[in-house]
Each structure stands twice: as structure tokens, then as C-alpha cells.
């Protein structure tokens, strides 16, 4: 028990440090996400046809500069709340609230801030060239006289990550504080302690080994709870899709990669670069294969697995909700709505399981790779 208390103190310190590090780095990378195949919205955001549903879903899967709940088509009013926009333009830093764009996403509304004209096209903030008053588009709908700016905005995803960090600080802070009073945690700690022990006993110890697992517990616990909380946030009606942003999952995978590369033992490097017991001619191709595997393929599979699972989950839930529109003609409004509600509920319950499973798998594979790197072989 005493051993466990000491461990929690170490975990507490490293969790606090890693949360700060994570939120800082992922904040910086979150602006780099997304593709450019996204279309304009219709005027009142009305969603009726399959094409509009597809647009709506692809818009939901991306990051945005405000929380948008719904729009009233009759009055054209939007029910949403804005988030701060922080951009580094050619003239320097500019900050304002995203409500100044008035939900425009096609480059129609131009916000002027101290001589810099800014507009939002496909959820990306563009700066107009000097002298331009309007955005011109070429035939592929790319802006001709506007360019992207460095975007450090508190977007929806960044807000979600900050929220997850705050929840973790509060929850684990309470857990750590309750160990000062006695051996049995109180309050939220009673829920969190079994999970911490689960990560230690089922994930870290079997994969990394009894001797060396403790150094990596901070990272593994942080990654586990960070992914799990964000996956669960994605199931709330707020519309977060943070773990479905490839920049976020890439950042997490790069963390894992750096940790196992830098904690590799002598034996790991010997086996990677100059495999013993193999003919000399084979050693060079083997070294290349091993290096590519550790540097590229393992992190890539980690990041793609989490990203694709969460994106697919959101896509399926939203498509099933859209059934009430697409099936209205065939089955009538009541049957189609009931059908889509039952199916969406069913998939959402499965998604709760997937949220945990993906966090578990990411942590499990991270510790497996770390275990491969720190392992020391017996010399025969």
C-alpha cells in the first residue's frame, strides 16, 4: 500500500506536467488539420437532400471556430456560441471573437482589424491581399487573392482538449489529495483508483516489465485518460470530434514514438541496427526495415487507428440520425424518426464501448512498443 502511495505521488507530478505539455503542443498542431474538399452551406443551413446531409456531416467531422447547435430556418437565426480567434497575420497578432464572422463560411463577410482584412473560407481563416475588398475564387473554388494565416485560435477541438485537461487536473488532484488523509480514496477518487490500478496491472506491468514500468506510468495514464475523456466528450451533443482530428492523434503517436525511441536499451539498438545471428549481407536491409517500422509504421498505425475509428463512429451516428430525413418519403415521418432514433441509440451505446476500447488499445500498444524498446535480452 505504501508502495502504491509513492507511485501515485510520482504519477500525480508527471500527470500535471504532461497535461500542460500536451495541451500546449496539441494546441499548436490543431490548426494544421483537415482537408480542402468541403462545400459551402446553403443560406439557412437547411439540410434536406442527401448531398446537403453529406456536407453537414463532413462539416461536423472537422474542427470549427464556434459551437453551433442549430439554426432556425424560418427566421435565419443561429443558436451557437462563439470562441476566440487568435491569428498571426502579416501585420502581427490579431484577436477577436468568431461571432464577427456571423456564421459565414464562404468568404462573404470580411472582418477588418487594424488594417488587416480577414475572412473565413471552409473553416479556415484567410487574409486578403493588400488592396482587395472581396475574395475572388478560381474555377476550383480556391481563393486567388487571399492566403492562409497562422491560426492559434481556441477552436472547438482546442476547447475540448483544455476541458479534458481541466477535468483530469480536478479529478486526479482530488484523488491525490485524498491519499494524504488515509489509504482509502474518497469522492471521485473511488471511481478513478480502480482505473489507475487497471492501467498499471493490466497494461503497463505485463508489457513493460515489473522493473521498468514505473517511469512510463505518467505517460500511459495521461494518454489513457486523455483519449478516453475526449472520446466520451465526442458522444455529448456539443459536437466535439477531437480524437477524430488527425493532427491530435498524430501528436499523441509522435509522443509515443519519441518516448520509445529515446528510452531504448542497448540491446534494442543492437537488434535494430545490427541484428546478431544473421548473415552479414542481410543485416543492412533488416536494419532499414526495423528502423522504418519503428519510426514510421508503428506511429502511423497508432494514429490512423484512433483517427479512423472515431471518425467512422461519428459518421455512422450522424448518418443514422439523417435517416429520419432520407427515409421520410418512403416510411412517413413517424416511422423514419423512430427507426433512426432506435438505431442511433444502439450505435451510441456501442460507441461508449468503443470510446473505452480505443483508449485501452492506444495505451496497450504504446506500452507494448515501449516494452520492446526497454527489454534487455539474456546473453547466451
Amino acid at each position: 500500500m505504501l508502495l502504491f502511495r509513492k507511485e501515485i505521488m510520482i504519477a500525480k507530478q508527471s500527470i500535471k506536467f504532461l497535461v500542460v505539455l500536451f495541451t500546449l503542443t496539441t494546441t499548436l498542431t490543431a490548426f494544421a488539420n483537415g482537408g480542402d474538399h468541403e462545400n459551402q452551406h446553403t443560406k439557412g443551413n437547411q439540410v434536406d437532400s442527401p448531398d446537403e446531409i453529406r456536407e453537414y456531416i463532413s462539416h461536423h467531422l472537422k474542427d470549427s471556430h464556434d459551437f453551433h447547435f442549430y439554426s432556425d430556418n424560418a427566421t435565419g437565426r443561429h443558436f451557437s456560441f462563439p470562441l476566440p480567434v487568435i491569428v498571426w497575420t502579416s501585420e502581427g497578432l490579431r484577436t477577436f471573437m468568431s461571432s464577427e464572422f456571423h456564421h459565414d463560411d464562404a468568404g462573404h463577410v470580411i472582418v477588418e482589424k487594424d488594417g488587416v482584412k480577414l475572412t473565413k473560407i471552409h473553416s479556415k481563416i484567410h487574409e486578403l491581399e493588400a488592396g482587395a475588398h472581396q475574395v475572388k475564387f478560381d474555377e476550383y473554388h480556391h481563393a486567388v487573392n487571399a492566403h492562409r494565416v497562422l491560426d492559434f485560435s481556441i477552436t472547438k477541438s482546442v476547447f475540448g482538449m483544455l476541458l479534458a485537461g481541466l477535468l483530469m487536473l480536478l479529478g486526479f488532484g482530488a484523488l491525490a489529495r485524498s491519499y494524504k488523509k488515509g489509504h482509502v480514496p474518497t469522492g471521485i477518487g473511488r471511481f478513478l483508483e480502480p482505473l489507475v490500478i487497471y492501467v498499471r496491472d493490466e497494461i503497463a506491468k505485463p508489457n513493460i516489465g515489473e522493473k521498468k514500468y514505473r517511469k512510463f506510468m505518467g505517460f500511459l495514464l495521461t494518454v489513457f485518460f486523455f483519449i478516453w475523456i475526449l472520446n466520451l466528450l465526442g458522444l455529448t451533443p456539443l459536437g466535439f470530434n477531437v480524437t477524430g482530428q488527425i493532427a491530435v492523434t498524430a501528436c499523441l503517436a509522435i509522443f509515443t514514438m519519441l518516448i520509445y525511441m529515446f528510452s531504448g536499451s542497448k540491446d534494442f539498438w543492437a537488434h535494430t541496427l545490427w541484428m546478431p545471428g544473421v548473415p552479414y549481407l542481410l543485416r543492412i536491409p533488416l536494419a532499414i526495415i526495423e528502423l522504418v517500422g519503428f519510426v514510421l509504421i508503428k506511429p502511423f498505425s497508432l494514429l490512423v487507428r484512433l483517427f479512423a475509428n472515431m471518425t467512422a463512429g461519428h459518421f455512422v451516428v450522424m448518418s443514422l440520425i439523417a435517416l429520419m430525413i432520407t427515409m421520410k418519403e418512403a416510411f412517413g415521418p413517424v416511422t423514419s424518426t423512430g427507426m433512426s432514433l432506435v438505431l442511433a441509440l444502439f450505435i451510441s451505446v456501442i460507441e461508449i464501448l468503443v470510446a473505452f476500447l480505443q483508449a485501452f488499445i492506444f495505451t496497450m500498444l504504446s506500452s507494448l512498443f515501449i516494452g520492446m524498446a526497454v527489454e534487455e535480452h539474456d546473453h547466451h
Partner: protein
Amino acid sequence: MYNLIGAGLIVIGGGIGLGQIGGKAMESIARQPEAAGKIQTAMIIIGALLEGLAFGALILGK
């Protein structure tokens, strides 16, 4: 077009593989219920690796 066919083939392969993993895991749990925990963990890890491959094909083939 061909990339879509390739991605589809890989996803079919992934489906067959996942079925094999799940079926064999079920069988071995039925034979040795006391080892269920270990079998499940191994099953999930291999399933995840396979899933990563299939998702990679989906993303690259899109």
C-alpha cells in the same frame, strides 16, 4: 478506381482475419475458461493491429 478495389480487397482480408481471430479466441476460451482474460487481451491486441492495417488501406485508398 483501382485504389478503391485494392482498399476493398484489403478490407475483405481484414474481415476474414478478424473473424478468424474472434472465432479461435472463442474456441480457446471455451476449452480453457480460466485463461479467458489472457486470451481476450491477446485477441484485442491482434485485432487492433489488423484493424490498423485495414484502416490504413481505407485512408490511403480513398
